């Protein structure tokens, strides 16, 4: 880890930010078209973020600020670990478990600062977010566990390379269809998209953890949201859709999956948090266990 790594990492972060924010802008237009209206300009998301960063804001104490900075720092660190297509900023560090747990640093920072604001809406939102995490993460980790055992490597680029050997048919979403379905559903939960977004419900709990954030803090939380979306969607692209031989291929797959999920989320209602947990522990967990069982014991799809 020398200076070059850090400069390279910073550039990848910038590229991830620019790509993901434009994609969110385009998706806002797609969603608007779904609702038969024109929708904002494609660079509206940039304007929103920079406007929020340019405003003044109120703070509730050092925990409130420290939590936001720790959250954004943790999420940026995770984004550095994620290979941007074939490019890797930090060598040999794209281990799935490291990424899953460094992601938790961001979540903890955000939860800490939200509760530190003293607003019960925020604490309710955080308790729902953590329960939601307990729901969507278990099936996902089970499927990932199966993949690691099957191919004896837990590095993202390694798994992506294995998939690319078999060309299109080599993709894990084809060889392990159940695992692919579970991954897409839990990605919907990770992103906090419609069926599983009870923890940021605007009307119900006044946007949950983000209730007390304004101006600068809100801008940083928008950045956090963009980076965490980048992390989660590229995790699925690397694991199940063959990563990216070239940056362009990676970005195209990424955009298609994200837009697909956005459309799906736009037509779905919102689960109550205990309904979300029961749903995740019925269908996806069963699929995940069956998939892992097939991989480990039967060895189907691995040869």
């Amino acid at each position: 880890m020398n200076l070059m790594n850090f400069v390279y990492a910073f550039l990848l972060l910038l590229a991830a930010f620019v790509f993901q924010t434009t994609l969110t802008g385009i998706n806002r237009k797609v969603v608007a078209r779904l609702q038969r209206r024109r929708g904002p300009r494609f660079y509206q998301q940039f304007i929103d973020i920079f406007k929020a960063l340019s405003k003044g804001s109120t703070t509730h104490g050092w925990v409130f600020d420290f939590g936001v900075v720790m959250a954004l720092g943790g999420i940026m660190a995770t984004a550095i670990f994620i290979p941007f297509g074939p490019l890797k900023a930090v060598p040999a560090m794209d281990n799935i478990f490291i990424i899953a747990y460094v992601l938790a640093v961001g979540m903890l920072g955000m939860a800490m600062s939200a509760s530190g604001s003293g607003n019960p809406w925020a604490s309710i939102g955080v308790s729902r977010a953590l329960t939601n995490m307990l729901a969507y993460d278990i099936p996902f980790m089970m499927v990932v566990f199966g993949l690691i055992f099957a191919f004896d490597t837990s590095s993202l680029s390694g798994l992506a390379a294995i998939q690319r050997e078999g060309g299109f048919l080599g993709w894990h979403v084809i060889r392990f269809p159940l695992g692919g379905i579970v991954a897409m559903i839990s990605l919907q939960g990770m992103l906090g998209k419609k069926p599983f977004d009870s923890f940021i419900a605007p009307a119900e709990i006044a946007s949950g953890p983000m209730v007390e954030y304004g101006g600068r803090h809100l801008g940083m939380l928008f950045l956090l949201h963009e980076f965490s979306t980048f992390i989660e969607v590229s995790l699925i692209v690397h694991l199940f859709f063959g990563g990216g031989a070239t940056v362009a291929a990676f970005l195209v797959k990424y955009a298609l999956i994200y837009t697909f999920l956005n459309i799906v989320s736009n037509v779905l209602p919102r689960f109550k948090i205990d309904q979300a947990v029961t749903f995740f522990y019925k269908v996806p967990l069963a699929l995940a266990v069956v998939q892992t069982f097939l991989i480990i014991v039967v060895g189907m799809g691995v040869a």
Partner: protein
Amino acid sequence: MTTNSKDMRKTWEKIADYFRAHSIWMKWYCTGCGAIEMPPTMTSRFDMEQLGMGPMATPRQADVLLITGYLSAKTLRRVIYSYEQMQDPKYVVGFGSCTLNGGIYFDSYATMTRLDHYLPVDLYIAGCMPRPEAIMNAFDTLIKMIEKGEAKGWRHYQENHDWYRKNQLHSLKEVYVKDEFHE
């Protein structure tokens, strides 16, 4: 429009004002009968998201406070409290004649008759109640005002805070009240 006096803002301010103009988040405080005009303005026919505007859940996150009609004394106290929770720079848009001069309730004992006596109003929309076309036109004007840096109501509120407070106390006796339901 007053002629543009020498522009005092630094370049950084101008860029920030460009961002602030094209992304205004709205604190949707449905105070009066004008609130029903907002849904058509937001949905497919008029779609105010084209202008970069959208509803937000809490005053902390919002930039513009829309007062969409008459304000009784009780609601005015809550509106002032919400306004003070918003982050600078913030703007206030008064809908309809009730905020201008009391409208049809000018002689009522319960409703205030002039909004800019209590809050710095950047923009009024005439009408009782203004239709979505008028609202979209008003938002367009607001965007131009912010871009040129003329929407300085929030600074005016900060500088003459005691004048505003005097007016508020004259009309409402107290702004932060203890009510029976929260003991």
